[in-house]
């Protein structure tokens, strides 16, 4: 089969998967950064220390770039359901549509409305209104996560609906729809992931400046805050992930079978640490297994029953290989983050956190780790619910639009090329901002700079020319 024989359904799926995977990292980072900025602004108001303002101004620039990329990829997402999955939109729209409508009305407008004031308005409103704007932006990001995860969770663990005579899902009980069985687990897991990811990035930037010897007071402060955040968040995340796994076992046993790598339902199942799923032979090869551990983790008993994928009809099985590996990468990263937190906590306790060493190198290496973990977790849960869009009720094949093969190809290539260019450039600018560090992010008050050229002014090379020009 040549690459051009790929069915239109798979092209539509690939486009959706690509677009949503590219998008998810931006809101995740925005959620964490928005909350972080809110904490910094509050600390500044309470303590009156200028160091928090400097950290705030530094991360505000980074937030603005990330948020901008989140907005443009998010606008795409709001149309993606109808573009590629028109039948899904028709059939599931009555249930998920209103939830997404609430997301727009309670979250998107809130973020967008107060973002301008947060980015440009410090000298135009009083400090209480400014604090309020920062808080609303942070609150908006969390509300947005709540609604979209409610939609996603309903698709994974549908509840509170009936079917009508044209085959649409019709809401019966909104409470059951919104607070469907997997929402609490998914929401907590995602928000923790966002916080942990942001803490890892902040720690990574701090570590870089420690290694380079450019760690001033602001860098040290943000580094300490970030390491403390990892120390607290990572273990909670491991616990939350475990709880989410139990919920998945209850509602999506086929997904659990794929995650665990089991083909046969068994009692006293071992935990496969490593292996290579072999779908054609329906077994997992080269297994390294901890006896009874899978049963113990999932059922809290040594001889608890754990499902195997072989017990499901072949057309209801998720692709085990992808789910199996992405799940292991996510979990492995999670434990690595916890180790970094503990290591940093120990250094903090011994008052050696700011002495450059191996810890800083590791913090730098794992700085982008949260993003990888989020995408891996996203793959685990989304591939794991295949072949369904609405789990157990409506398949992906039934959901797809009437697309021409050529248009689907062109759109996929278009998204990949455009996103690679735009978000590649964005990442480059972010890294450059991070490399400059907060020492160049002067407090904006009383330092008139050229309009729109603030970031330009932050680039050390440009500072003099910018200022000269501003006075011409």
């Amino acid at each position: 089969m040549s690459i051009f024989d790929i069915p239109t359904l798979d092209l539509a799926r690939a486009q959706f998967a690509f677009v949503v995977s590219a998008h998810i990292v931006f809101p995740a980072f925005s959620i964490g950064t928005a909350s972080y900025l809110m904490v910094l602004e509050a600390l500044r108001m309470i303590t009156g220390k200028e160091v928090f303002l400097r950290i705030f101004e530094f991360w505000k620039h980074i937030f603005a770039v990330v948020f901008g990329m989140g907005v443009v990829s998010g606008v795409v997402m709001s149309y993606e359901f109808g573009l590629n999955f028109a039948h899904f939109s028709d059939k599931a729209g009555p249930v998920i549509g209103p939830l997404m409508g609430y997301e727009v009305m309670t979250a998107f407008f809130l973020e967008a409305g107060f973002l301008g004031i947060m980015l440009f308005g410090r000298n135009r409103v009083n400090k209480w209104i400014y604090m309020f704007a920062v808080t609303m932006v942070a609150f908006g990001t969390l509300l947005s996560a709540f609604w979209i995860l409610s939609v996603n969770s309903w698709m994974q663990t549908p509840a509170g609906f009936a079917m009508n005579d044209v085959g649409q899902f019709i809401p019966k009980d909104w409470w059951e729809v919104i607070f469907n069985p997997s929402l609490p687990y998914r929401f907590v897991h995602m928000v923790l992931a966002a916080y942990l990811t942001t803490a890892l990035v902040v720690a990574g930037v701090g570590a870089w400046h420690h290694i380079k010897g450019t760690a001033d007071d602001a860098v040290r402060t943000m580094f300490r805050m970030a390491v403390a955040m990892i120390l607290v968040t990572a273990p909670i995340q491991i616990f939350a992930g475990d709880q989410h796994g139990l919920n998945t076992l209850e509602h999506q046993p086929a997904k659990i079978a794929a995650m665990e790598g089991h083909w046969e339902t068994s009692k006293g199942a071992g935990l496969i640490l490593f292996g290579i799923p072999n779908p054609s032979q329906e077994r997992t090869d080269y297994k390294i297994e901890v006896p009874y551990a899978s049963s113990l983790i999932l059922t809290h008993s040594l001889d608890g029953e754990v499902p195997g994928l072989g017990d499901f009809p072949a057309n209801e099985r998720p692709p085990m290989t992808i789910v199996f590996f992405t799940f292991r990468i996510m979990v492995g990263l999670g434990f690595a983050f916890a180790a970094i937190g503990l290591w940093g906590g120990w250094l903090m306790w011994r008052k050696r956190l700011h002495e450059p060493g191996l810890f800083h190198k590791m913090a730098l290496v794992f700085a982008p780790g949260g993003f990888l973990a989020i995408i891996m977790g996203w793959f685990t849960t989304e591939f794991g619910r295949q072949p369904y869009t609405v789990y157990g009720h409506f398949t992906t094949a039934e959901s797809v639009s009437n697309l021409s093969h050529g248009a689907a190809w062109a759109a996929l290539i278009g998204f990949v090329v455009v996103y690679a260019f735009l978000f590649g450039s964005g990442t480059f600018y972010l890294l450059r901002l991070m490399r400059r560090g907060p020492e160049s992010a002067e407090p904006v008050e009383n330092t008139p700079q050229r309009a729109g050229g603030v970031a330009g002014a932050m680039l050390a090379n440009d500072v003099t020319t910018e200022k000269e020009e501003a006075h011409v």
Partner: protein
Amino acid sequence: MSGFAHYLPDIWAAIIAFAILTYVVLDGFDLGIGILFPFLGSEENRTRAMNSVAPVWDGNETWLVMGGGGLLAVFPLAYGIILNALYVPIIIMLLSLAFRGVAFEFRGKTRRWQKLWDKAFFGGSLIATLAQGAILGGLLRGPEVTGRTFTGGPFDWVSWFSLGTALALVAGYVMLGSAWLVIKTSHGLYDLARRVGQVSLIATLGFIALASLATPFLHPEYYHRWFQWPGVIWSAVVPLLLMVAGFGYWTAIRSDRGVVAYLSGIAIFILCFMGLGLSIFPYIVPASITIREASTTAMSQGFILVGAAIFLPIILAYTAYAYWVFRGKTSEHEHHY
């Protein structure tokens, strides 16, 4: 079904029409500024024009998400069919808006690539506007529908008519953008905006006249509506109202009354929008699916109507506040952050 539930589809059609109109008049002016971007003369003018919209563009664009999200929420069948039918121009619009949106942030982050992001801002704005106009033209011609599925081809939307609506929207957005620049700027940029405003007004009215002449002939249904009682009142009165609004814009843009010019521009858009409504209503996918057929259950429409009743006034209030915070002429040194 109780009396109120019977009117839910109409109420929602009105809310979505309001969201789309709000999108058009708000994002319209910043897209118009994007289209004017290469013609603003100096680097300084460009920066100033961009800064005048930087604090508000994001909120403006959210109305586009509201239009799409609202359609999914209350008319899911129409959402699926329309997006399926207009797949190509919608993808083009989304990709162009992506270029345009990141340009706001990226432009100030680089010196070497600034010219590139200027082009991205211009190209993204222009192509997104053309695509939106083509979407309108393609929709008006009526996508081919069988049962609950779009059954036409990916390029059915291409026609002379959709080319005309695409160009009309470019002229209309430039007209709004010029009024905005008159409100927000002074000196050279202000003079330029006044000249461009006059030209774009004439172009806009010309395109509207052409589109109005063409629309009744797109579909026999439209013809009947426009030239039979009571539609004929509309066909007779609207040109007059458009002349009044056009005259308001013309006189205001020539003096320093940008707000009046902008409001007149909005009036022109509202009149066109009402004309569209007259052509289409009660269909939502022209000539094939009515708003009632596309409606989700009353339970869904009622549930989200509660939210709309509470949140839309709040949204409008803080949006107005955000505009108020950044009122007045944009100086060169402003809107840094």
